[in-house]
């Protein structure tokens, strides 16, 4: 399968009440939700999105925003009043019930908020339920269910009843049941909302691990923005039945589409969502090891900074030099920068969340270097930038923002030194 779109929703509407079709017709003609409330309730209004294969797509909204209705249209538990849903390239809106059941068996499974396990069946029979419905033989499905039970960490509980398990374990059964069905798409309806915060975090982490391992497409519904930000490759924010913004967690955080989203995201733990790459600044004071101390000193003077980033000849990040050290080196007439490179300069990967940068930033006034896996210098994060990003304030407050440690030696002194050493150099 080369299809990259796993699930596609196109102009979906869902209305409840006495005359749903009329509600949708009026909404399309531009009526507001309140104007049509006498005819029925528009639960989902004009929702369009595409979910790529292998992606975690989070639909986030408060209760009553229509997210549960939306997810139930994606596997046909609720009929869309208008619009189409496509799963694995196959439209599922308006198809006969038998065909729809076939799609559910093969392409799309679901995890429920309150687990929805069959209470009269053992854990293993619950996990094997999807396979049973698919018509798989008993021995085969139990063998497969056993591997899934191991995968979700329920070893030794296979013959227990759901009521003998804690909430977190019950949801592992729910997750196992969906995974065992071996569908490409997993719908998760507030799957972790009924769990304790600690267990929830654990389940979130496990879900990400499983997703990386199995490459499932996951559509996750939640009202918890932190959960959305943690899990989502992309997030759709819903309000009053409409999708108000779709974007990556960082896009939503840094560029909210409207005041509602902005207000929503202001309480998010930004340190865990924003990554080094999203806040880093371009590097200005850069020298190469071959450039020599005089070039380094000149660059530091030009940028009025006390430190410069040093690159090896192959472009990889070598470390940082301080202006004092360079000055001494120049005065001593030494041409090799490598002897004074500070090896303890902190470098992080572009994916590192900001929370991991706080401690190194406190310990050293040097900017933190952001390097990729080939050690190439992508950018730097000065302490000021980090603070601004965490506090959600713009760094562009003035024409010349002070974002690097100020020079500790005066410009005239550097110039003087450069001139003197230049003469010496000429004399030699």
């Amino acid at each position: 399968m080369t299809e990259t779109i796993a699930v596609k929703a196109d102009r979906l509407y869902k209305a409840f009440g006495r005359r749903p079709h009329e509600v949708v017709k009026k909404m399309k003609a531009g009526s507001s939700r309140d104007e049509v409330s006498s005819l029925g309730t528009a639960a989902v209004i004009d929702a369009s999105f595409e979910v790529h294969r292998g992606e975690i797509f989070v639909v986030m909204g408060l209760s009553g925003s229509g997210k549960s209705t939306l997810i139930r249209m994606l596997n046909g538990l609720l009929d869309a009043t208008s619009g189409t849903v496509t799963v694995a390239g196959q439209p599922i809106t308006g198809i006969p019930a038998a065909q729809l059941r076939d799609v559910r068996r093969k392409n799309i499974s679901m995890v429920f908020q309150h687990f929805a396990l069959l209470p009269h069946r053992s854990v293993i029979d619950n996990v094997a339920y999807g396979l049973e419905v698919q018509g798989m033989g008993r021995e085969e499905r139990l063998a497969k269910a056993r591997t899934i039970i191991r995968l979700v960490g329920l070893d030794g509980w296979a013959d227990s009843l759901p009521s003998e398990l804690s909430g977190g374990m019950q949801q592992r059964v729910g997750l196992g049941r969906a995974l065992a069905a071996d569908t490409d798409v997993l719908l998760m309806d507030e799957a972790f909302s009924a769990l304790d915060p600690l267990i929830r975090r654990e389940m979130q982490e496990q879900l990400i691990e499983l997703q990386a391992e199995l490459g499932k497409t996951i559509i996750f519904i939640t009202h918890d923005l932190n959960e959305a930000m943690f899990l989502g490759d992309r997030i759709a924010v819903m309000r009053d039945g409409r999708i108000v913004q779709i974007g990556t967690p960082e896009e939503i955080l840094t560029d909210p589409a409207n005041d509602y989203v902005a207000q929503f995201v202001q309480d998010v733990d930004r340190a865990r969502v924003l990554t080094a790459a999203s806040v880093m600044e371009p590097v200005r004071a850069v020298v190469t090891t071959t450039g020599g101390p005089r070039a380094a000193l000149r660059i530091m003077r030009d940028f009025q900074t006390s430190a410069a980033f040093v690159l090896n000849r192959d472009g990889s990040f070598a470390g940082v030099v301080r202006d004092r050290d360079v000055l001494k080196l120049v005065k001593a007439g030494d041409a090799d920068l490598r002897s004074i490179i500070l090896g303890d300069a902190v470098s992080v990967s572009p994916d590192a969340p900001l929370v991991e940068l706080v401690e190194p930033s406190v310990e050293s006034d040097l900017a933190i270097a952001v390097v990729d896996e080939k050690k190439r210098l992508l950018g730097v994060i000065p302490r000021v930038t980090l603070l601004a990003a965490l506090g959600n304030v713009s760094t562009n407050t003035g024409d010349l923002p002070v974002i690097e440690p100020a020079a500790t030696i005066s410009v005239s002194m550097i110039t003087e030194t450069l001139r003197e050493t230049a003469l010496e150099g000429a004399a030699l």
Partner: protein
Amino acid sequence: MNDFRLPLGTIVEGFIDWITDTFGFFFDFIRAAFDGAYELVDFLLVTPPFWVIIVLAAGLALATRGWKFMVGTILGLTVIVGVDQWENAMDTLALVLVASVLAIAFSLPLGILAAKSTVASNIIRPILDFMQTMPAFVYLIPALILFRVGVVPGIVATIIFAMAPGVRLTELGIRGVDREVVEAGQAFGASPWRILRQIQLPLAMPTIMAGINQVIMLSLSMVVIAGMVGAGGLGADVVASLNRIDVALGFEAGLAVVILAIFLDRLTAALGTGDTPLGRILAARKRRSQQALAA
């Protein structure tokens, strides 16, 4: 104005007459079938010596509730033998069993239908109200006309009277199954029939069993009334004692009814909880064999 009168009674009477004339063969068939079923069950209960039945009942009691219930059952049934009502009691039990089984056989599908379809529910509910609140004696009249004197009009009247709680509680039980669990069945592509069989019925079972319990209890109360149309059994003695103002006979026959009622009620109630001593033993054995299999 005083001349005004709704001729409802006459209309119903004409209707019954018409039915008797038109569908007589049909009612003859039902009569034969119900009568045959009753005779068979009655034969099975009356033929063996009383102690065989008591032992069987005691075994049932032990399996469903434990030894206390077993002792109670033995004592109760022995009292029935002691007041010389054993044969009557077995006749009545046969009547209750046949009527209950038939009432349950009709009420379960109706209850399922009512749970699945709101339209069906809206149609069935007032009919049930009618069946349940109409004085029970009234059913006896058309039943008597259609099926003639004997056991069958008693069974038919009993079925009609006792069906309602079976339908109601089946509907209630199925509608009360956690929506999310039903959705889970749907989400994994299960057919409606499979959802009914594997999810809705098992989860509704305690409520449905409560309904079945009620059906049996109502059957028992009705078969006594059915004694008036010649259904025999304990009902016949109760009616006879009423006619003769015979306190002794009335008390003995009535006591036998009470003992039967308590036995049947406790028995079916235990089945409804799904937690019986026999069930526990079977579950433990199953678990052991599974563990042996897994090891």
